[in-house]
């Protein structure tokens, strides 16, 4: 985006490896990122320019100029310049500190170290010095510094695993693989240094899942796609090292391109202020005109006769002209109605509120030692007006930890903690978890609370054994032993990790695998199974199976998958168990657990051989291969025997349910926007009570074309409004006028709770076409909205949609880089801190460690800020108007001559010294929504301090000494002495005070009796029963067991089965035999292509699912 300004837009990028001189010709951006606005030199001009763009500041500059004209100047220049300079300095200091911190964080990122291949040597280089075309080395668990073309890696075949959670929020590992020509380079520095391939590729863009390019090297061309690219923001996992060539750096990287523009956020109070200031200008002009007319008349009637004493300048003889001059003079005098110090005071108040947020121990998370942080100090009161919260799922609502919670084996539930579900939590603490410490390979973190399961295992229940055997065999996990001999699992989806770990803790330990075998330790004895076939997972099949031969020679098919799918393929003999298990599954699903059904089938040798043969021919088929294969899979995966079901908890963050409940009570709508799969998202919806069984309907929009989406939306709306409307809405043409009507009446007429689940693909159509309004309308009528499989940009678009068309204040909360754009788009962005990546936090306005703190941020800090700010504004305007309008009154006595009542120093200091602090103190410390009802010591200090300040300044200015020094500036000598000794003065002060306070007190008193506000009632009630404890909030209702048919959700990706059977991801322990070398090589391209194809298919096939009623 910066690039395009400097030079014509890049159409195509040409990068040559290891050749900085060549690449410099193109002036590609380097890897330095800038989020800061100023440098030391540009600070003053840019900042001043920005500040004078503010209406008030510009206005005061204008006033200053007016005051330099002697005919007009009714006040001396210092009355304006003192506040103006003060205001501008304070703002500048604040801007400078803000920018300093941005510089600091930029520096931190820019100074991260990475290993770069320079002059044939690996050298440590700062990130910012990395240039396009450089070859850099990454190590395990490192952040990727720039968008790289993967050249080679520690894993065989140039594979590497990356975690893209920062980019798209998906938690499963992704595979990237180098071109075979480059992967041969390995870690050979000298060969890598000689690598001089040229990449011609697309210009920088923000599409995360697309890359097109060509690598020319050694007279041959290799096409490049997204599978060969590692993007900045990813983390290298399970790969000890890899080498990559920088294609896009710094601002050109897809991460930064995706992060959207940093918009200057303003609060609605700011906007209100701007309009108010405009109105005040109008008011001021009116006053000026009235007084100018008065002056003209006066000059005409009285002033003309008064000429003996009041000279007339020759050029001023015209009374009209005199009126004109008077207009400007009064504009100067009455300038205090336009509150210049207001902006500064508001900033100070917000700063104070921000510190309260930072200091709040109730928002401090001891687990990560992370206090809450208000990163933007100008938005606090907006927090009190939030109507929509857009939340990310992974890492925000959930902890991204999967735990094996329950299982149902052969009709019996294990893992039910206790019968008394109401006090589940306390029991959890009391009850000892099952002790796994006896087992050397048990994972420490695993906890399971049901002893009966262990007993069943000990008793040797064959079903239980088979159940765990299946869990240990049917998966795509890779195992590794670290230096201490401990088993480490590399999982591509956390669900599988949870299952395999559960099996491991129950004595069925998955040890290792080769492409042909799986070795597990069954209750102490090592058993090696022969892996005959791997029936991979995909989104249509929703299941995966392995076919193994056990040492006894039996062939077994083990299958796990969605209950809905698996139950259809059971052997009739399992019918009874099916009913029972299905009940259990319903129960699990109702608790928001992710469920999988588990089944097996004994195969006879002959049948399998036949089938295997068919599979081989099908695999070799030229066309329709996939169909044939899936047909064969269907064929063998039937007549299964049900074993049971597993239930995995996608652990929610602490307090999520309660937070969501109380936010909903405050009529804040929460939308979940996640890059994750639909099932996963829906599951979480149920888990945190956003979706409930009580809901009248859950609409699922998963259409793949504009037409489908429109149809689905219409159908959903139809069922919302009943039959009549849906008939009317038959045509697009007649839809438009109707819409407006519906939007206006809609929200009242719809009864019952509805929820909307929309898919990323459908969302893309819905957002880009005319059905945007349909979507918005429907979504706003629904209690819960879940958008799944959305890209970072779509997240931002959804937020923008609501922000624009609903005119509502929005908040986006997220933890990863994929949330950055939405965080920046929303009125308020909140980042979850304490995670590895910092992007979300850096882009956010507020950050804290736990989702549950949102409640306190919005309902306590936000609410208080809003009330304080409103009260502050009222007070501020009141005092300024009271102060200034005296001059309007006085004009009628002084011949409209713009004579001031107060001395000029009083005018200068009134706003910024005498009266600012008490109002400020109220704005910062007040706690309840009424008038200053909360008098802390600080309020007292400020109020009495201000009065003291006033008098000390007054006495100083009216003293002999200062008159001696500046007789023309301080001609007030003696005034104080003479006036304050007059008893009348004190009597008038007493009278005014009482006369101005009494009406307010009376009004409040009467209002409290006639229309008590909730606060009044609470306070009265508190007073009445000081001893009684406040009512305790009722615990959220225990979740009822549900009628949901399936809680199936599986964060799994297709293609790993093939990886395993081909052995491509197996670490070569011995050099591969020479004979076997050729086969994988010629084969490798095909499976890799397959893999890529399938990942792209995943998306489309997924969305083809019809609107399934959940």
């Amino acid at each position, binding site marked *: 985006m910066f690039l395009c300004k400097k030079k014509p837009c890049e159409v195509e990028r040409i990068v040559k490896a290891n050749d900085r001189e060549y690449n410099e010709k193109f002036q590609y951006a380097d890897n330095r990122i800038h989020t800061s606005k100023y440098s030391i030199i540009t600070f003053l001009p840019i900042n001043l320019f920005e500040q004078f763009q503010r209406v008030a500041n510009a206005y005061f500059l204008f006033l200053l100029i007016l005051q330099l004209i002697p005919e007009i100047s009714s006040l001396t220049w210092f009355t304006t310049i003192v506040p103006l300079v003060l205001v501008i300095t304070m703002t500048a200091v604040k801007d400078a500190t803000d920018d300093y911190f941005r510089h600091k964080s930029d520096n931190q990122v820019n100074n991260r170290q990475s290993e770069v291949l320079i002059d044939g040597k690996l050298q440590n280089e700062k990130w910012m010095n990395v240039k396009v075309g450089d070859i850099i080395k990454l190590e395990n668990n490192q952040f990727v510094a720039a968008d790289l073309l993967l050249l080679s890696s520690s894993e065989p075949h140039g594979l590497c695993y990356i975690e893209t959670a920062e980019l798209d929020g998906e938690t499963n590992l992704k595979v990237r693989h180098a071109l075979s020509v480059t992967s041969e380079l390995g870690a050979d520095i000298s060969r890598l240094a000689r690598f001089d391939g040229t990449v011609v590729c697309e210009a920088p863009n923000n599409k995360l899942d697309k890359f097109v390019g060509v690598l020319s090297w050694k007279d041959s061309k290799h096409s490049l796609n997204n599978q060969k690219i590692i993007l900045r923001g990813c983390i290298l996992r399970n790969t000890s090292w890899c080498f990559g060539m920088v294609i896009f750096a710094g601002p050109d990287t897809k991460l930064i391109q995706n992060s959207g523009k940093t918009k200057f956020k303003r609060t609605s109070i700011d906007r209100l202020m701007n309009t108010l200031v405009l109105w005040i200008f109008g008011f001021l002009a009116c006053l000026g005109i009235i007084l100018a007319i008065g002056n003209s008349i006066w000059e005409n009637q009285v002033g003309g006769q008064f000429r003996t004493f009041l*000279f007339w300048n020759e050029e001023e003889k015209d009374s009209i002209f005199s009126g004109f001059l008077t207009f400007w003079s009064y504009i100067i005098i009455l300038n205090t109605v336009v509150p210049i110090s207001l902006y500064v005071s508001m900033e100070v108040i917000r700063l104070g509120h921000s510190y309260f947020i930072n200091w709040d121990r109730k928002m*401090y998370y001891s687990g990560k030692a992370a206090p809450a942080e208000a990163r933007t100090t100008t938005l606090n009161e907006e927090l009190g007006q939030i109507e929509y919260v857009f939340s990310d799922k992974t890492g925000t609502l959930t902890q991204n930890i999967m735990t094996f919670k329950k299982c149902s084996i052969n009709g019996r539930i294990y893992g039910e903690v206790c019968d008394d579900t109401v006090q589940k939590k306390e029991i959890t603490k009391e009850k000892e978890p099952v002790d796994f410490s006896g087992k050397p390979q048990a994972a420490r973190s695993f906890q399971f609370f049901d002893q009966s399961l262990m007993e069943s295992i000990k008793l040797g229940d064959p079903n239980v054994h088979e159940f765990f055997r299946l869990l240990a065999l049917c998966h795509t996990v890779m195992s590794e032993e670290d230096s201490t001999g401990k088993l480490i699992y590399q999982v591509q989806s956390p669900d599988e990790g949870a299952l395999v770990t559960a099996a491991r803790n129950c004595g069925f330990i998955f040890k290792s695998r080769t492409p042909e075998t799986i070795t597990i330790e069954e209750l102490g004895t090592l058993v090696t199974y022969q892996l005959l076939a791997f029936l991979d997972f995909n989104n249509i099949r929703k299941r995966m199976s392995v076919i193994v031969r056990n040492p006894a020679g039996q062939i077994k098919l083990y299958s796990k998958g969605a209950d809905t799918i698996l139950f259809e393929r059971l052997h009739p003999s399992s019918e009874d168990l099916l009913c029972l298990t299905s009940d259990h599954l319903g129960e699990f699903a109702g608790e928001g657990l992710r469920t999988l059904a588990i089944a097996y089938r004994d195969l006879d040798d002959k049948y399998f051989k036949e089938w295997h043969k068919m599979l081989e021919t099908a695999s070799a088929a030229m066309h329709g291969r996939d169909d044939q294969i899936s047909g064969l899979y269907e064929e063998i995966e039937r007549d299964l025997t049900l074993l049971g079901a597993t239930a995995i908890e996608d652990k929610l963050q602490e307090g999520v349910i309660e937070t969501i409940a109380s936010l909903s009570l405050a009529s804040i709508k929460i939308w979940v926007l996640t890059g994750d799969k639909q099932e996963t998202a829906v599951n979480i919806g149920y888990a945190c009570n956003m979706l409930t069984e009580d809901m009248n309907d859950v609409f699922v929009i998963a259409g793949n074309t504009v037409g489908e989406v429109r149809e689905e939306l219409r159908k959903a709306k139809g069922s919302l409004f009943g039959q009549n409307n849906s008939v009317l809405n038959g045509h697009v043409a007649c839809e438009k006028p109707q819409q407006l009507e519906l939007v206006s009446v809609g929200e009242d007429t719809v009864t019952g709770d509805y929820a909307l689940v929309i898919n990323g693909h459908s969302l893309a159509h819905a957002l880009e076409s005319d059905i945007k309004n349909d979507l918005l309308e429907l979504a706003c009528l629904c209690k819960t909205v879940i958008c799944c499989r959305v890209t970072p940009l779509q997240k931002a678009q959804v937020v923008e949609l609501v922000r624009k068309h609903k005119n509502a204040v929005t908040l986006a909360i997220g933890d990863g880089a994929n949330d950055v754009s939405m965080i920046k788009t929303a009125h308020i962005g909140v980042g979850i801190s304490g995670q590895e990546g910092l992007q979300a936090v850096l882009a956010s306005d507020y950050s804290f460690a736990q989702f549950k703190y949102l409640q306190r941020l919005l309902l306590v800090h936000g609410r208080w800020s809003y009330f304080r700010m409103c009260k502050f504004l009222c007070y501020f305007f009141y005092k300024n108007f009271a102060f200034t309008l005296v001059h309007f009154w006085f004009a009628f006595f002084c011949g409209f001559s713009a004579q001031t009542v107060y001395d000029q120093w009083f005018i200068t200091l009134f706003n910024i010294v005498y009266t600012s602090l008490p109002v400020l103190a109220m704005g910062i410390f007040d706690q309840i929504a009424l008038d200053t009802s909360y008098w*802390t010591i600080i309020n007292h200090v400020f109020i009495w301090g201000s009065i003291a300040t006033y008098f000390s300044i007054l006495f100083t200015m009216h003293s002999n000494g200062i*008159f001696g020094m500046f007789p023309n500036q301080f001609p007030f000598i*003696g005034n104080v002495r003479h006036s304050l000794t007059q008893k009348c003065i004190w009597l008038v002060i007493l009278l005014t005070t009482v006369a101005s306070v009494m009406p307010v007190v009376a009004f409040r008193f009467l209002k409290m009796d006639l229309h008590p506000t909730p606060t009044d009632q609470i306070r009265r009630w508190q007073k009445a029963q000081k001893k009684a404890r406040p009512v305790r909030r009722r615990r959220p209702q225990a979740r009822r067991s549900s009628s949901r048919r399936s809680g199936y959700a599986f964060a799994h990706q297709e293609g790993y089965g093939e990886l395993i059977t081909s052995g491509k991801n197996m670490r070569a322990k011995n050099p591969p035999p020479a004979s076997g070398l050729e086969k994988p090589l010629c084969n490798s391209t095909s499976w890799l292509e397959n893999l890529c194809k399938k990942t792209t298919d995943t998306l489309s096939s997924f969305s083809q699912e019809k609107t399934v009623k959940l």
Partner: protein
Amino acid sequence: MTWSAAARRAQQPDNTAFTQQRLPAWHPLLSAGIALPLFFCAGLAFLGLGLGLYYSSNAIRELEHDYTGDAAGSCTVCAAEGQGRAPPPRCLCAWHFTLAERFPGPVYLYYELTDFYQNNRRYSVSRDNAQLSGLPDSLRHPTNECAPYQFARGLPVAPCGAIANSLFNDTFTLWHQRQPGAPYVEVPLDRAAIAWWTDYHVKFRNPPLVNGSLALAFQGTAPPPNWPRPVYELSPDPNNTGFVNQDFVVWMRTAALPTFRKLYARIRQGNYSAGLPSGAYRVDIAYNYPVRTFGGHKLLVFSNVSWMGGKNPFLGIAYLVVGSLCIVVGFVMLAVYIRYQDQDDDNDNDEE
């Protein structure tokens, strides 16, 4: 809701009342027990104060005479003579009045001008405080605000500006006739300390004398155009001439409203220290100051003072009004309170 009780760490915010917004605070709750007595007490106090003020203000005697010359009186002639002539000719006239009873002292003599806009901005800025404080530099270089009375005939005007130029120059002498037929005796007018002490001693200073002569100090300056004589000849008394002339100093303290009184003299000497005894009086007026051109009036005022200053019935009335309003509102509040308190009690009972 319970928030996790966190272990103390370096990053953890301090647990102080200030940072956690738990500062001890006073929550004034407008309960009937506070508000109602407050209103009644304040009301009664104000009524009392108001009555006191009203009566003491009423006890002040004032004697006014408009000598502009519009109506019948000896000044009519002077007014007619001065019509249209600038500067008006010197003219003498008199005001006769009789006091049936003693006018209690101390008596102050004021002159009052009406519709004279001393508060007009262009008028009131037209002065140079630095010059008036005796700075020699400012004497020669009056500030620009004084224009067009900044320079006259090429010389700097001293004192410069419109205020000084329009110095009130009527003079008065008071004569008392004890018995009818007896000769008029001049009543001594104490004109010494009529200006503020600070004005006379600090704010207004003559420029340093040259060879012991004030006239030399002012050499090279011109008097304001309306003045018949230079500033150093305002009075023969060396302590009352130049910038420190008391009349001048009084005049230079400009009035805030277009109708204003300025102190001319106190009567507190000799037989008159306790007030003006009964008898016939005559005020001889040197009628110089033209006010008829702009429709203004000149008045002479004899007045005495009370503990709270000059005559000011407004303050007393304002106190009375506010006091009674407080009591009325107090009764309204009481009525409302009694009515709704019953309801609240009922509601509370229902809830329990």
